[in-house]
């Protein structure tokens, strides 16, 4: 029987875990996903990958419900995500069975990050090639957490993962302000605006909204198109004003 106990993820002489770094590269090849924490709302936005002509146009859902009030979006290897999401769903129900309480967003993030870390320190396995964005309300406060292939998890105000995430992150760092996400509509607008930086058309975007004590809702195509139109008109106006001010 071939030996499957040798570790694949080992330290390099200068202290790098190359497999983990390669996994992060895989994440950056996946379609973009962003999340924004508003004052009383959480917005998830994902880039919809264009499907092959013969493939069923049913949306490849990059946004998954883990539990009644916890939702996850990811960037990276879809199959790896499927496995992790399944484990997370089981953990959510197991937590409820044991303590008769809903798990917190942090608990789920910690759990998923724990699994991702395990796979960087076990024999015969490779790290998961996904970074996750986990959102939900804890005690009526909106929370956004992320995990990555190294197994770290952190809380964020806004984050982008996947293709062109660096560009979106820079956009968010400039444009995310507490006032900018005070109202629910403003938060949704900011999410769409940041995705539009790196995604061409509105039909390639999917937006999900998490409100306190309410089920997950998806922005309808018409609403999204209208929002994109408004954003593009505003952009045009800003450009014209900049030109006239020159």
């Amino acid at each position, binding site marked *: 029987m071939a030996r499957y106990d040798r570790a694949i993820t080992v330290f390099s002489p200068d202290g790098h875990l190359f497999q983990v770094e390669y996994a992060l590269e895989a994440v950056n090849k996946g379609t973009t996903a962003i999340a924004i924490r508003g004052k009383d709302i959480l917005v998830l936005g994902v880039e919809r990958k264009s499907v092959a002509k013969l493939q069923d146009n049913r949306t490849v859902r990059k946004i998954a419900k883990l539990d009644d009030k916890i939702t996850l979006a990811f960037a990276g290897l879809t199959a790896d995500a499927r496995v992790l999401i399944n484990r997370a769903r089981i953990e959510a*129900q197991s937590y409820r*069975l044991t303590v008769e309480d809903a798990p917190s967003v942090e608990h789920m993030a910690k759990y998923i990050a724990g699994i991702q870390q395990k796979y960087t320190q076990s024999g015969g396995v490779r790290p998961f090639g996904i970074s996750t964005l986990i959102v939900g309300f804890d005690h009526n406060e909106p929370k956004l957490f992320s995990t990555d292939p190294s197994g770290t998890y952190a809380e964020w105000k806004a984050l982008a993962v996947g293709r062109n995430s660096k560009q979106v992150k820079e956009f968010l760092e400039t444009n995310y302000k507490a006032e900018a996400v005070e109202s629910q509509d403003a938060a949704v607008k900011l999410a769409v605006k940041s995705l539009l930086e790196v995604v061409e058309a509105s039909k390639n975007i999917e937006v999900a909204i998490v409100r306190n004590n309410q089920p997950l809702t998806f922005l309808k195509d018409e609403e999204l198109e209208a929002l994109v139109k408004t954003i593009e008109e505003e952009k045009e106006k800003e450009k014209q004003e900049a030109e006239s001010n020159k």
Partner: protein
Amino acid sequence: MDSIFGISGRDFVLLAADTSQARSIVVLKTDEDKIMKLDDHKLFAMAGENGDRTAFCEYIQKNLHLYYYRNDLKLSTRAAANYTRKELAEALRSDPYNVNLLLAGYDEEEGASLYFIDYLSSMSKVPFGAHGYAGFFLSGLLDRYWQKDMDREQVLALADRCINELRTRLLVAGNNFTIKIVDKDGIQVVKAASS
């Protein structure tokens, strides 16, 4: 000894359970809710050994929820009943659960249905049923007075009749009963355990 019974009407099912929790000669509490919500359109009336009762039913409930999150689809009443039966059957010859159940549910296709499941994991879709000592007294009564497609008042009246019979004749019957109904609009608590 827990008394539970269920009666199906036109497009709805009523479940009733006594609310006393006793050990030998001591009554521990009189407001125990033995009818558990499995999901928005399913109810479990549970009877049997105390630890097993709650542990088993919570386990089934969480697995139903897991199925829903995995598949974005709610299980039908029939599927839930069969799943419950399977879990009982698998445990039967190693670590059996001493629980008797009545599962009531509403689906779009089937309408309202009631399943009788006992601790030996036998399962049957029934128009009405009762577990435990209640069964001795109520089987005949329900046989005599149940009709197909009864409306809400008729079924509630029949349930009252059953409860009165138990109060009169069953030595260990609880005084208080909790009554819940499941129909297309979900679950309705007609009489809460704590009242």
